[in-house]
């Protein structure tokens, strides 16, 4: 009986799973075609009042997105008299973000402005939201192009890669040497794209003396990034420079370097905010770092959202719209709008900026 019991259990499970299996392979309806994103053509070029525009960052409680959304997006939405909101998961996972997309789609939000945690995983939910009538703008981190109407890119990956490699090369000096990258999470769409482009950039003859020896991931957590920085230096005694193209990572690395014997010997650059990096620029840990202005990014994304929902633009290449104080922007290939080149901060200018 004992044996019988356990076998019965196993058989029951197997039968149930087999059922799931056959059910999987049969079935079912074809997908709904994505709704046409065509606008009605707004000749006057003014953004409609009363639009509901909601920002959905990778996660809430993140200083970067607090600035982009609340200091940028909100300002813009208030300028054209819409209703601004920010919502999102407390952890940066794609599945949690999908749940929020569904909620926004149910709430009849006019435009969802999202920084995607996974370029594919949020696609189904975004397509469903578009079918229900919402417009979709991505900013900071894109989805597959067919899942959104417009991507507001903070800087082209190419621009960032060129900037970062130039900065580390200048900091390490003419003799070159080993360098490493400390990234955010291993899955971050934008980070991985930039790292690939940095490798391309490093292959150029003028950087032949720089050798990329390692890439590590701090998951955009301060403590983990700090430990990874420590680990890099322990593992590579000849390391001459670290690039950390993420605000959390570069600040944590700077904190580690400035308190260690490597200060001034191992160069550091990355994408950081002036407030977090000011002290380290002044104490010589980091000569220069770069970033765009996150508030401008949110501001531009909000104007793109307003223009889209008002029918001024549809996301076609060549569409033009006015983005308040930032001036006129043109939609490029694949529905991309580029904010501009990354901006380099150093000891000479860092005091003129106050954010982050």
């Amino acid at each position, binding site marked *: 009986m004992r044996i019988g019991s*356990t076998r019965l259990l196993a058989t029951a499970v197997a039968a149930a799973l087999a059922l799931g299996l056959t059910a999987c392979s049969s079935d079912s309806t074809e997908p709904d075609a994505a709704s046409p994103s065509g606008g009605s053509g707004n000749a006057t070029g003014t953004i409609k009042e009363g639009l509901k525009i909601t920002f959905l960052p990778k996660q809430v409680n993140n200083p970067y997105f607090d600035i982009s959304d609340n200091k940028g997006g909100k300002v813009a939405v208030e300028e054209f008299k819409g209703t601004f909101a920010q919502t999102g998961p407390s952890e940066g996972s794609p599945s949690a973000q999908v749940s929020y997309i569904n909620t926004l789609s149910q709430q009849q939000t006019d435009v969802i402005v999202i920084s995607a945690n996974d370029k594919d995983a949020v696609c*189904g939910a975004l397509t469903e939201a578009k079918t229900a009538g919402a417009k979709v703008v991505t900013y900071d981190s894109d989805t597959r192009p067919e899942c959104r109407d417009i991507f507001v890119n903070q800087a082209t990956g190419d621009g960032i890669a060129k900037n970062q490699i130039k900065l580390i090369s200048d900091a390490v000096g003419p003799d070159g040497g080993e360098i490493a990258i400390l990234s955010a999470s291993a899955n971050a769409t934008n980070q991985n794209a930039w790292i690939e482009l940095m490798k391309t950039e490093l292959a150029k003859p003028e950087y032949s003396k720089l050798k990329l020896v390692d890439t590590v991931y701090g998951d955009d957590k301060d403590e983990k990034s700090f430990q990874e920085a420590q680990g890099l230096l322990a593992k590579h005694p000849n390391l001459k420079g670290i690039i950390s193209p993420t605000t959390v990572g570069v600040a944590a690395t700077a904190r580690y370097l400035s308190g260690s014997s490597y200060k001034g010997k191992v160069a550091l650059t990355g994408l950081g905010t002036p407030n977090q990096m000011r002290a380290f620029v002044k104490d010589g840990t980091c000569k220069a770092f770069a970033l765009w202005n996150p508030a401008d990014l949110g501001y531009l994304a909000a104007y793109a959202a307003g223009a889209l929902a008002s029918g001024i633009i549809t996301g076609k290449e060549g569409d033009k719209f006015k983005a308040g104080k930032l001036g006129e922007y043109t939609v490029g290939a694949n529905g991309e709008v580029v904010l501009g080149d990354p901006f380099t901060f150093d000891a000479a200018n860092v005091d003129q900026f106050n954010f982050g």
Partner: protein
Amino acid sequence: MAPETVIDLAAQPRTSRQRPPWLRTFASWETTVVLALVLVILIGSATIDGVGDPRFYRFVILEAIPIALIALPMTLIVITGEIDLSVASTVGLTCSAMGALWQAGVTSLPLLILVSLVLGAVLGAVNGVFVTVFGLPSLAVTIGTLALYRGLAFVVLGDKAVADYPVSWTTNMIAPIPGTVVPWFVLVVAVLALLFGVLLHATPIGRALYAIGNNAEAAAYSGIAVLRTKFWLFVATGAVSALAGVFWTFRFASARADNADGLELSVVAAVLLGGVSIFGGRGALLGVIAAVALLGTLRNALQLADVPANALTIVTGTLLILSVVGPNLVRTVRERLRRRQPTPPMERTQR
């Protein structure tokens, strides 16, 4: 602890005869959970825009499916006094393996699913061997495999996401039953729930599970194959977690090593909120299913009411505490009620 439980069980029929039926029904934790679910839906529909829409249920169900699936075998495991915390990592490793196989040119869907299920069963069997053969506590073992399986998932797929599956696969996975908004996959969950429900509540195996949870030693002496039963429960949990992984991969159209990160906590929360005792020996599947629905509905309703994410986690945490305190409180109240009744002399001599 154990001898008391035996007496408690023996005393049950007497109290049920003597208290009015409505009180018995109300005093059951499972009923409380079902009532809470109904209440959330009623209040939500009346006060929050969007709650109660067909689309609301569709989204709630889509989110609840993986949790509900894994909660089924997890209920059985917890009833035996064990736990499996590696389930979400099993989902992640299954997703990674499917992604890697797809990239390696395996394009047959049934084969991909079959390999995943077998992989899940093997991962469950590893847990089972550590717990039953080496006699290690399942809490420690599965915290270990939680990290191990997640690590392996990253070894298999690295930082890539595999997302180029045929669109028909990914849309079929979340397609509704024709004429409704309900995703068809819920039928798979329903069939499994029925199987696990019958197994737990209507077969000798089910009774054996409760016996093991109440006192494994006594169960062994009374002829129950304690270790073998536990082993197969871990295998079943692994296989069902793998099925959840298959669903996850196609639902999000994305196989990634970090898929379902942290899902084990949602599953355990639902099982405990459903009235299953963390000490084993107590619980019913209906309560767990109602708890999965309650947590999902509440979460989505609060999201629609623009409650921020931080407050949401506080609500979930509070519910979890309540779920541990609640059933104990209900039992204490019952106990008090029973003690007020005069004890028949015959049973007194039995004690």
